[in-house]
């Protein structure tokens, strides 16, 4: 799992670089003033050598420790897998833009259709349904009562919740809480949204999901060209200037949620989307090898911490060990 916010630590290199530069500019002069110009050559050369390696090792320290925070991973490590069964939490955006008909019949209907197909494809699984706008709520708790789930899908519409907005963070967090406790099942969240003007911090929620080992599969419903939002009376949604609002699929947040949580992103208008989601769910459900082991990316943070500490060790060594009887 990569921790993208760790990248900001690289910014520390800027002040460190400035300090190194200043020390180079002034250090030698300061040194002569203290130690006497009569030793200029010997001291100056040693200063240069020590300054160079000391700076280099400190920069290495910052780089390595940042890489450790980032959680750079390569290779796979086998993890024993006792999980049985599949629990899916559907998180469905029911903001008004989901009424747009750029995907036929509408984004919302297409999402519901896809949810229905997935329920049929995994008859032994438990499902929960979470709807969100500005707020999120559990439309159905996790249950294997498919009868109930499918009968209730038809009651889902954008008017079911009045809170304005599209707070995907709340949706995801509600979904994380909807999985039954004390179960060793493969748990997956599937998020349907057009990704437009998402509120909340989806990345935090995605990280929480990743920590719990729950990948979020995101499905972007909508098209790049977008379309207008038709209302029940046949008119279209207008903005404050009286112009018709065009809504488009915005993929960035959805892609980020998928990548941070270890899920995958799919486009709702892709004909093969359903097959791929099913295949992915099947892969997630059954451990990949036959001996009940699954493979997880191996986080190499320990190697980078060690490298960072070794860099610091050299950095201190350069300082502490006296060279040529000078300093």
């Amino acid at each position, binding site marked *: 799992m990569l921790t993208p916010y760790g990248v900001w630590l690289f910014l520390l290199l800027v002040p460190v670089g400035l300090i190194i530069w200043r020390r180079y500019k002034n250090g030698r002069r300061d040194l002569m003033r203290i130690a006497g110009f009569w030793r200029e050559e010997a001291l100056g050369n040693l200063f240069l050598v020590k300054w160079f390696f000391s700076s280099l090792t400190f920069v290495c320290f910052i780089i390595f420790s940042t890489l450790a*925070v980032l959680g750079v991973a390569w290779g796979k490590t086998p993890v024993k897998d006792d999980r049985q069964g599949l629990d899916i939490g559907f998180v469905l955006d029911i903001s008004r833009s989901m009424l747009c008909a750029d995907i036929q019949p509408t984004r919302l209907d297409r999402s519901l259709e896809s949810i229905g197909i997935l329920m049929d494809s995994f008859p032994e699984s438990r499902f929960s349904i979470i709807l969100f706008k500005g707020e999120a709520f559990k439309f159905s708790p996790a249950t294997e009562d498919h009868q109930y789930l499918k009968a209730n899908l038809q009651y889902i519409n954008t008017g079911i919740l009045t809170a304005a907005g599209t707070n995907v963070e709340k949706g995801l967090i509600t979904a994380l809480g909807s999985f039954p406790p004390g179960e060793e099942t493969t748990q997956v969240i599937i998020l349907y949204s057009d990704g437009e003007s998402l509120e909340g911090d989806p990345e935090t929620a995605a990280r929480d999901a990743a920590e719990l080992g729950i990948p979020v599969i995101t499905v972007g419903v909508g098209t790049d060209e977008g379309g207008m939002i038709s209302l029940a009376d046949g008119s279209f949604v207008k903005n404050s200037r009286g112009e018709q609002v065009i809504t488009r699929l915005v993929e960035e947040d959805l892609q980020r949620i998928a990548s941070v949580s270890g899920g995958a992103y799919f486009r709702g208008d892709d004909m093969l989307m359903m097959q791929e989601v099913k295949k992915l769910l099947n892969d997630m459900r059954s451990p990949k090898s036959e001996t009940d082991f699954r493979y997880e990316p191996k986080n190499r943070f320990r190697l980078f911490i060690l490298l960072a500490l070794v860099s610091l060790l050299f950095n201190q060594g350069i300082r502490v060990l006296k060279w040529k009887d000078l300093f």
Partner: protein
Amino acid sequence: MWTLEYPVYLFLLAVVPVGIWMRHFRKRRGGRLTFAFDIWKGSGFSAKWTGLNILLGFSHLLFWSGIIVFIIALAGPSLFIQERIFLSRGIDIIVVLDESPSMAAQDFKPNNRFQSAKNVIREFIAGREHDPIGLVSFGREAALRVPPTLDYGEVLRGLDSLNLMDLGDGTAIGMGIAVAALHLRSSTAEYKVIILLTDGENNAGEIPPETASDIATGLGIKIYTIGIGSQGEVPLEFTDSKSGKVYKGMYRSGFDEELLIRIAEESGGEYFTALSQNSLESIFKTIDSMETRGQKVKLGIKTIPRHNVFLVIGIFLLFGDYVIRKALLKEVLP
């Protein structure tokens, strides 16, 4: 709870005192310049315990605590969560509750029958663990309120939202059982149970109770039936939640005991009569103990790595030391 994944790395902490000695106390340590500051037979000067020195000491403190925090991060500090993991499938239970107006009869002091039943069901739910519970209510019609789920919070919310007469003023026992059976049909549970609470005779619904109970029995569902309320005249008072109308009067109470006994026996369940809140409580306790099966449980351990917190703190401690020494105190020797 906190734990360390590889505590063996903590042995590296032994390096810290050696490092401190090497850097701050060793006689021939580097990082110092020798130059004359003393005239012959005169007295030299010594550094005073000034603010600068305090700052320098502080930066040393930052440095060594940074190193310690880094070594702890290396040992892999993690949050350690223990949870009970159920290896066996629980029993699916659907509670079928009568919400016809007669349930407002006030012979269950201090509450009416309906409120008492809700309270007792609430306690029953609290006592279960890992058994999916669902909720069906019926009046003239029947409806599934909550599908069988382990999310007991939802079941309790569903229970709280039940109101008398929401589904009309009849007693469709058959419909209640049929709806419950329908929703237990796709369940993968080995044991399926319906608990039926009613205080009246079946007088509504398209499906007669006998047919419904045959369907349920055919699906391997056990039905416990509870006839509630005393027979005879009882006072009744309630407010219709929809119209706000207050209903008040005397009511001739009675349920079809024979029918309830037959349903219970055919499906392998039991029949109970509850005349008071206390007896209703003990009935639910009996059902609770009859429907308790040994569950296979194991202790699952989840560790959530938290080394990043330590790393970030460590980086800032060491960076702080660097800035104080190099930028503020303008340390000359690299």
